[in-house]
């Protein structure tokens, strides 16, 4: 009996003599020439796995995406066939995407104009005869390269996955996906979201502070329906068991459906009373964990609600393929429980370390904001996941999807190496390269080089950190011959730009080889020490814009719109790109990530491009830009170089620093170029806030100065004495 009780795996006396599980030849050469050739095998697969077991390699035509890249076509909506509000939002998100095309010839992915969101035939939104309609379309092609969105499938009583029409070889982007019907790497699981879900922008998460300890009033809460019968009732019927009336509140009501009283049991009356005593929103705000059980279907609205509220979801929905699980690591933001082990949940969540709780809470907020807070984000995440499958070697790694700022803002076409982005230095122990590229935009008319520009080139090239100078020459007249340019210690490259294309200054030119870009206007005036100091600051904040002249935005309640000021203020939220350091990745993000329409807007409104750059970087980082010490005004205000052409937009000194006349909105009716410019900038700001769906700019109250700046100590001790000269 004792030998029975203590039996480890034996150490065999002849253990070393055992044979290997396979001969070396068997392992190194298992090819069987009698088999189908690879080509034949792939052809055979296609026929076998076209139905049912669709995968990208069998049901998706990659060749459609090769010539024009990843382009998405949405079917035009049929007359007399209105779509639901939610499907309308999805379609408009697709149309807002930078991948959208109106030409089906160049499309890689097709989306139906028929509303397929609600396929419960008892529902009012149910569209009948879908089969007929899609088969009538010449583009349908058996569903190949089609993506079908769906939120509700099946119906009472089983609520299965059926859509009620033949989806052929189309991919499904579906809520409440069951892992057994989910085709991995082919379908996309999306979250269930409500009709009120905002189109763009979206509300912030509710976590405003990292409380320590991260506990809230309640540990674990649930408030919802208790199904008395039918699918999902097993889990919902048990939820009341964990209620303890103190830190665990689990309330169910029997009231739902018309005939609930027929199925009513002895608990119902008391439960219904308790149920009314607590407010759902109050519980959501004040609990550390929220139970997210299955309903009739696997997904529920409360999943996104809990995520937004930073109430860590405790999932009790067995077999649910979690939203975007192909990209998102839910283990960092949710507790994936088992319906069968409900009674263990209280002890399990109690045992989670406070550090882990804090990390969970922050992660819910990151995911909410990165992928879920608007219909745009949900749809664009779906598209990016599919796009990543097309060229696996140019796709986002899992770590990239799961760290700030999230997959949508990181373009694998820029690089697949994390060290090339401004966001991951600390997490991966990289650091940005210690050199910068000075990038000067020249628009002046003169055939020769202006004095300010010559001085600027000299000052900048004297910096020990300057690797190269790139001039973007955006005038009709050709740039002066190379002999006319000043001799400098660093290489100088001239790029011929296009006239009137303001957004070009943020084009990801190949010539820019360093992580840091120092963006300059030709009439900017900077000293070498200013450049050196600002660059040393940028190295500490490589994800932000670090610059000299600043402006700020504010909400104007009278006008009901955003206001903009270049006045001297105690705050700042915009750094002018006439003199600013930032990471070169932002050139790519500006050019590739923003849809063409937005860049056209910038080209149309003078002096809007730098606001857009600031808005974009703030949307990515959620942080303000950084202002550093500035010696004196940066534009030589008096001698404005003439614009090329007839100068529709003048460039008055934006960073005017005349204390006697703080510069602000020019008096009404002056009609000067300055006021036009000012109102255009204000328009620009408002249009951008509208496009983003919120105002991404963040204000700061500080400026970074050298450590000994204006301290009462000998200038000989100071590293940047010249910054203090008036």
């Amino acid at each position: 009996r004792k030998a029975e009780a203590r039996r480890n795996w034996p150490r065999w006396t002849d253990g070393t003599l055992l044979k290997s599980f396979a001969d070396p030849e068997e392992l190194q050469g298992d090819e069987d020439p009698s088999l189908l050739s690879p080509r034949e095998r792939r052809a055979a697969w296609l026929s076998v796995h076209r139905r049912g077991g669709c995968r990208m390699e069998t049901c998706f035509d990659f060749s459609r995406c090769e010539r024009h890249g990843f382009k998405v076509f949405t079917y035009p909506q049929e007359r007399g066939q209105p779509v639901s509000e939610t499907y309308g939002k999805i379609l408009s998100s697709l149309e807002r995407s930078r991948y959208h095309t109106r030409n089906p010839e160049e499309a890689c992915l097709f989306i139906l104009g028929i509303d397929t969101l609600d396929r419960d035939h008892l529902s009012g939104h149910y569209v009948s005869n879908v089969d007929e309609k899609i088969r009538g379309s010449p583009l349908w092609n058996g569903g190949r390269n089609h993506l079908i969105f769906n939120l509700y499938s099946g119906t009472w009583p089983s609520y299965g996955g059926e859509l009620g029409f033949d989806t052929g070889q189309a991919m499904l982007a579906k809520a409440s996906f069951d892992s057994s019907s989910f085709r991995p790497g082919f379908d996309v699981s999306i979250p269930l979201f409500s009709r009120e879900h905002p189109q763009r922008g979206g509300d912030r998460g509710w976590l405003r502070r990292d409380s320590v300890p991260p506990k809230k009033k309640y540990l674990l809460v649930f408030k919802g329906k208790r199904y008395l019968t039918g699918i999902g009732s097993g889990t919902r019927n048990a939820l009341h068991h964990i209620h303890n009336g103190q830190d665990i509140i689990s309330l169910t009501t029997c009231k739902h459906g018309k005939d609930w009283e027929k199925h009513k049991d002895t608990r119902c009356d008391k439960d219904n009373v308790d149920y009314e005593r607590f407010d759902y929103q109050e519980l959501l705000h004040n609990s550390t964990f929220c139970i997210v059980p299955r309903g009739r279907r696997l997904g529920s609205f409360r999943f996104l609600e809990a995520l937004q509220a930073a109430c860590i979801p405790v999932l009790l929905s067995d077999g649910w393929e979690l939203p975007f699980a192909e990209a998102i690591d839910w283990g960092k933001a949710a507790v994936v429980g088992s319906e069968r082990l409900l009674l263990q949940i209280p002890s399990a969540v109690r045992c989670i370390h406070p550090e882990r709780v804090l990390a969970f809470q922050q992660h819910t907020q990151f995911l909410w904001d990165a992928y879920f807070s608007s219909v745009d984000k949900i749809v664009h995440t779906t598209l990016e996941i599919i796009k990543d499958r097309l060229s696996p070697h140019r796709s986002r790694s899992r770590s990239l999807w799961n760290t700030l700022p999230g997959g949508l803002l990181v373009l694998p076409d820029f690089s697949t190496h994390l060290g090339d982005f401004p966001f991951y230095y600390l997490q991966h122990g990289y650091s940005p390269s210690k050199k910068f590229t000075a990038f000067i935009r020249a628009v002046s008319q003169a055939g020769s080089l202006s004095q300010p520009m010559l001085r600027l080139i000299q000052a900048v090239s004297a910096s020990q950190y300057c690797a190269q100078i790139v001039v973007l020459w955006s005038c009709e007249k050709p740039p002066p011959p190379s002999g006319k340019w000043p001799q400098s210690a660093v290489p100088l490259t001239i790029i011929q730009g296009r006239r009137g294309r303001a957004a070009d200054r943020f084009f990801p030119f190949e010539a820019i080889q360093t992580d840091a870009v120092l963006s300059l206007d030709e009439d900017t005036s900077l000293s070498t020490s200013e450049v050196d100091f600002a660059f040393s600051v940028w190295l500490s904040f490589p994800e932000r814009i670090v610059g000299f002249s600043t402006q700020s935005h504010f909400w104007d309640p009278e006008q009901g719109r955003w206001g903009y000021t270049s006045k001297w203020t105690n705050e700042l939220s915009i750094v002018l790109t006439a003199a600013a350091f930032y990471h070169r990745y932002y050139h790519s993000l500006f050019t590739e990530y923003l849809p063409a329409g937005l860049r056209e807007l910038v080209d149309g409104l003078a002096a809007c491009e730098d606001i857009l750059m600031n808005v974009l970087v703030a949307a990515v980082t959620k942080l303000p830009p950084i202002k550093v010490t500035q010696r004196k005004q940066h534009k030589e205000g008096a001698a404005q170089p003439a614009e090329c052409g007839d100068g529709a937009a003048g460039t008055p000194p934006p960073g005017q620093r005349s204390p006697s006349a703080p510069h602000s909105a020019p008096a009404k009716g002056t009609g000067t170029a300055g006021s036009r410019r000012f109102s255009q900038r204000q328009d620009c700001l408002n249009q951008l806030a509208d496009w983003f769906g919120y105002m991404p700019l963040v204000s700061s109250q500080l400026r970074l100065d050298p450590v000994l700046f204006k301290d009462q100590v000998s200038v000989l001790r100071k590293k940047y004495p010249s910054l203090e000269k008036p």
Partner: protein
Amino acid sequence: IMCASAKYNTRGPALIPRMKTKHRIYYITLFSIVLLGLIATGMFQFWPHSIESSSDWTVEKRSVHDVPVVKLPADSPIPERGDLSCRMHTCFDVYRCGFNPKNKIKVYIYSLKKYVDEYGTLVSNTISREYNELLTAISDSEFYTDDVNRACLFVPSIDVLNQNALRIKETAQALAQLSRWDRGTNHLLFNMLPGGPPDYNTALDVPRDRALLAGGGFSTWTYRQGYDVSIPVYSPLSGEVDLPERGPGPRRYFILSSQMALHPEYRLELEALQAENGESVLILDKCTNLSDGAPAVRKRCYKNQVFDYPQVLQESTFCVVLRGARLGQAVLSDVLQAGCVPVIIADSYILPFSEVLDWKRASVVIPEEKMPEMYSILQSIPQRQIEEMQRQARWFWEAYFRSMKAIALATLQIINDRIYPYAAISYEEWNDPPAVKWSSVSNPLFLPLIPPQSQGFTAVVLTYDRVESLFRVITEVSKVPSLSKLLVVWNNQNKNPPEDSLWPKIRVPLKVVRTAENKLSNRFFPYDEIETEAVLAIDDDIIMLTSDELQFGYEVWREFPDRLVGYPGRLHLWDHEMNKWKYESEWTNEVSMVLTGAAFYHKYFNYLYTYKMPGDIKNWVDAHMNCEDIAMNFLVANVTGKSVIKVTPRKKFKCPECTAIDGLSLDQTHMVERSECINKFASVFGTMPLKVVEHRADPVLYKDDFPEKLKSFPNIGSL
């Protein structure tokens, strides 16, 4: 409830027990009972009769040939075929695993038997070397249990690693007669070579009903995601050949193919690639005319050149891993071992441990159709990324491929993570190589949040007996608009704090905490009384900071809530003569620390200081009564990777060092001690986490020629 986690104390160190008498009696009784129990157990333990004969406890010494023989009648039951719809919640019995504080599943191994059919013919080889290694590893691991009734997972000792080596029907019958088989529920089978001619199934053909399969060649159609585990095909060469890790960087060849039995169609494509790109591509094949004795599996040939295998793999940046009849190939393991980046060409193949490993960081997957584009695809990968992939490949091999033990434990850990998801190993732990884990930081306050101003901050004043100065500090600090509470940590056990009526009357709550011992670390305790995120640590003699300066400091902290934001800055320097770190408090152009005599920081760092300070630093600080601030600077910099923020210009501070600078008394020993602290902490942390910067934060309009009354913080920098 039993939690494995250490709970934070909710009370401060002022833990003078104040227990009610009836509780005391209760606890004394409880304690006595426990003590009696312990004594009884101890006596029982050492009671002579209960001592086991030691031989029963040692591991058995037997030969594999001596194991019992089991005869399988021809009509003994055969399990159902594998159920493709099985998932953990449908086919796995979680109730067997239970809740336990360690969050570890218990794994039982059936004892070894020899199975024969009715005619006495063996069903399979009893056990292979690798399967024996695998079971030994499980048996030696924390997962193992010898109690079949407590087991959550059952591992048969029937060796099914190689389907070629077994008889399918009889093996299935052998499985079905296992004592706890129960349709294969919670049974785990390991298989590396599935299928057989002519169709080469991608999963083990042995009918196995609900059993989980850890398989080495799954395709996306046979792999039950979240149920099965995809494992490597082990390469026994790993055990024979020692390939030392080679530093990352360019190698002699760009692309290498070393597989011997490639389908002619693939070989043609590879040769076309070679023809196009010349010598940077090397396509090896079997050697045809090797001299006798040389093992063919350890040589590869190109024309007349002979190469040693697997050593030649180290000569290439990328190594092709093409599917054969099976999807899983042992060469993948050799390639990873060589630190060569695998280029995997096997459509629909589920990569080993893909549930947890991020293969994009270690390999390139190319669809079979795109083989002709391989060269250009690989060339588009940035060099720095290639180097990381080389390191990553080698790390995957070391951690998850190198031995049967590594494979077995990774498999069990994956299943364990499914059953206890709230205790699962994180992505970073699975994927980051040790060098990255070491050099990277994971900031605990990673979400970019600017805390609401309305929250305010809690000022924590550590004091001993300078009551007059303390009261002045309280009065000054109470003028700061965002102060929400003032906490005085009374560190003097010999003297009572002044009576309530004597304290200054201020507009915010003032609390006094008494400590049990006069320790510097009391300053950094996460008192429950601190209800704000922001803490202002301030000495009881810092009276020179203006309200504007403090308010501005708080505003700066809001913009950098994960940093130390303080007033006097300090610097560490490398002393080349002494070859060690030196502390510097002179007028320097750089800072790397701020003194916590006046600094804002997040309350979270109090938790870290109190509970997570590495090594003996905390005790060391308390014993030396010095350097608690340097320790805090190290801690925060180490966990966030970020520099401190020094705010506002330099002022005259009244503190030991500051007087030194004023030239009143040059306290040399103090400076020496501070330098020692830096060297001590750097050695405990194993690195120098402090970051040196050249900037400080001032209000936007500081010293600008602008009306003072319009500035938010006019009173900054007055001496």
